[in-house]
């Protein structure tokens, strides 16, 4: 192993850990809240089973607004809100708030798009069989879109990694922050390059895993 990596080993592991916490929390938020929001966006559309113009318009607008913020500005803008929830706006835990919010907005849009690909006829079959909204979602929609949902989550996770690199501004740490503080600001270019390599490997692994799972569960 190159000397410089040995020298900074402890800090590198720490920042990898911070990245995992931040990205992990984003994934949690995406699944627990992004998936339902995306599903609701789809179901409330015109002509869909619980068509609701108000809910659709509000959710749609919210998702658009959050996604149109440059992420750095969103982080700054959310500082008071973060402080309200976490008690502080600084640190890895606090970084989870803006990350989760962008994660929900990001993934919900991909979920909505996946669901839009379900053939109309499958929805009709579900309704004609007397399925309730919950049954339509779990026994039809998620079954038919499962590979799209996995691919969407894969894309989202890779964006979350990218978003997490910005969290240094609020003391969130992480690999990206480490690369900037040591590699860029202290002119240790080789260290920066190693960090970038770690990121590339991470992204490749995630993409490979996501694509493989999606392919295996896709029977279409």
């Amino acid at each position: 192993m190159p000397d410089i990596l040995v020298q900074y080993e402890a800090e590198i592991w720490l920042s990898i850990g911070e990245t995992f916490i931040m990205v992990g929390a984003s994934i949690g938020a995406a699944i627990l809240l992004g998936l339902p929001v995306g599903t609701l966006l789809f179901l409330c559309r015109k002509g869909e089973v619980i068509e609701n113009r108000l809910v659709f318009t509000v959710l749609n607008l919210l998702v658009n607004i959050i996604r149109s913020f440059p992420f750095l500005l969103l982080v700054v803008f959310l500082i008071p809100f973060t402080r309200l929830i976490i008690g502080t706006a600084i640190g890895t835990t606090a970084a989870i708030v803006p990350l989760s919010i962008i994660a929900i907005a990001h993934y919900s849009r991909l979920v909505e798009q996946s669901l839009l690909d379900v053939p109309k006829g499958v929805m009709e079959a579900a309704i004609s069989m007397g399925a309730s909204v919950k049954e339509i979602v779990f026994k039809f929609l998620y079954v038919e879109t499962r590979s799209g949902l996995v691919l969407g989550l894969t894309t989202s996770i890779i964006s979350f990694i990218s978003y997490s690199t910005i969290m240094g501004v609020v003391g969130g740490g992480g690999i990206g922050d480490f690369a900037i503080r040591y590699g860029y600001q202290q002119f240790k270019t080789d260290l920066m390059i190693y960090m970038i390599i770690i990121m590339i490997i991470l992204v490749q692994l995630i993409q490979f895993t996501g694509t493989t799972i999606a392919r295996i569960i896709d029977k279409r």
Partner: protein
Amino acid sequence: MIKLVNVSKSFSQFKVIKSVSLTIDKGEVHGIIGASGAGKSTLLRLVNLLELPDQGEVEVNGQKLTNLSSKELRRARKSIGMIFQHFNLLANKTVYENVAVSLELANYPKKERRDRIIECLQFVGLKDLIKQYPAQLSGGQKQRVAIARALANNPQVLLCDEPTSSLDPNISAEILGVLENINKVLGVTIVIVSHEMEVIKSICNRVTVMANGEIYDTVSTEPIGIHHIDKSPSYFVEQLAKAGEMDDA
């Protein structure tokens, strides 16, 4: 069994069904025929309220569907099977699982599900394919799965929207044979929408002719049997020969 009374349906000002009344008796195989855009599918979809009528009443099996709460309607739909031109199977579920969904929705006793699924698949002649996914099946096989799914929960009525229109003629005949069996053996009332006269002639006892959102006429017919449309290769050769003669002329 099925009673539509002065039912109307518009899509954004455009009147697709114009105050139609129609009664279909228990045990009938009722055909609905007409040109494309006549409103056949819409009329069929009004029977299980896949389309809500603007006016009029829909009664199936002694129950006024138009008066039901959404929960009661869902319950009623479980005894009205439906099959479609494009099958509408779940692509990510096996043949077995596709049929199982219908029983899950109906809360069919868990212990009896497996037997029932096998029984239905046997009825449509598919029991060797239970582990296949729809993508591995031919069109005719997919329609058989759809029929098994519709049949699983012992429906009183089976609604068929162009069930054979995307199938080859000889496969069409097979599917019509299955439907005929369902009517004769299980006593299920069947409504078939089609734009093909041969489909209608082969198995229907009564036929409703539609044009421009209205019923032109309803007539009783003697089903001529599916063998008449069992188009063997020789049929096509004949047709080709005829076409050839016309070219020569």
